[in-house]
């Protein structure tokens, strides 16, 4: 489900690896990466700043019902096959009763109280 988001992350990790190996990354690579990120926002017509506001709104709404890890909420726009998607990743916090916490989306370990992401 978050294939694109996680591949993006892996891409970043790979870049860091090469950076460590060869010193600075090439400016062409940086250009490509910056373009890919900015175009995702351009195409979805959601400026990065608005995304931050959406994130705040989502946190406010979800946390009215469930205990979430506010620090690690991720809201991202991705673009695949000419379709823009809003990907939201909301980690759930451990409950007072000690049940294991899952994530709000994906295979949450509390299926009875699972929230779904807009992208699924």
């Amino acid at each position: 489900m978050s294939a694109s988001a996680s591949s993006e992350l892996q891409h970043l990790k790979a870049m860091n690896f090469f950076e460590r190996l060869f010193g600075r990354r090439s400016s062409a690579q940086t250009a490509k990466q910056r373009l890919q990120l900015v175009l995702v926002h351009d195409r979805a017509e959601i400026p990065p700043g608005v995304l931050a506001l959406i994130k705040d709104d989502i946190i406010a709404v979800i946390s009215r019902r469930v205990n979430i890890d506010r620090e690690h909420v991720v809201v991202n726009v991705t673009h695949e096959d000419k379709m823009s998607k809003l990907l939201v990743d909301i980690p759930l916090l451990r409950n007072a009763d000690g049940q294991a916490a899952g994530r709000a989306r994906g295979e949450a370990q509390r299926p009875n109280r699972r929230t779904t992401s807009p992208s699924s």
Partner: protein
Amino acid sequence: MEEKVITVTSGKGGVGKTTTTANIGSALALLGKKVVVLDGDIGLRNLDIVMGLENRIVYDIVDYVEGRCRLRQALIRDKRAPELYLLPTAQTRDKSAINPGQMVQVCDELRKEFDYIIIDSPAGIEQGFQNALAPADRVLVVTNPEVSSVRDADRVIGLVEAQQKGPVQLIINRLIAARVKKQEMLSTQDIMDVLSTEIIGIVPEDEAILSSSNRGTPVVFNGKSPAAIAYRDIARRLIGEDVPLVQPQPTSWWQKLFGRTE
């Protein structure tokens, strides 16, 4: 439908739309096609000076649209090719002098007589761009291997697709192979990955371009300069020939040593 009206656009200014229009139009004419190149940039006339025809303008497209002349009177014949014409724009008017409907009308008139109508779009995405896009059967988006022009190209491609004007193809202009090799410049592959749009030509950075516009002679008219070859290849692809894309290679030391300067 036959793809007669080809609009050359880019979003960003200064990436080489006018040079591209002049050279592709001239190259198509040298291939025996009957071609008119049309300046779409009202108020900032430039295709005439790049083509070297600036001293021959009497009437322009706005004169025709407003009924002061016949279309034939506004067309300037370029004698360097069998059938090449320029339809100049007005220098002292602005974009609102012509609307998209009138542009379609002018092109419908030209379609009767010409094999190809190549429109040099103004920069930007305002009315001048909409005018240039309205009659298009095919759109060529010019970009440089540089972040701002690639970003603008993406925006323009989106607008063109939203209006269902197609096909859209990309021309990568002013590529410097040596800098791509050193990873100082976006490569063709990088731009393809980012824009996912078909590429119809890669034009290398070429000193001959500046001297050709200095003289008012598009490079395709004389010479074997790398840009001239690239533009001729694009023209052949436009008429349906199967010409493989060639990645520009860095010039070797002996090419530099014996290379000619213009």
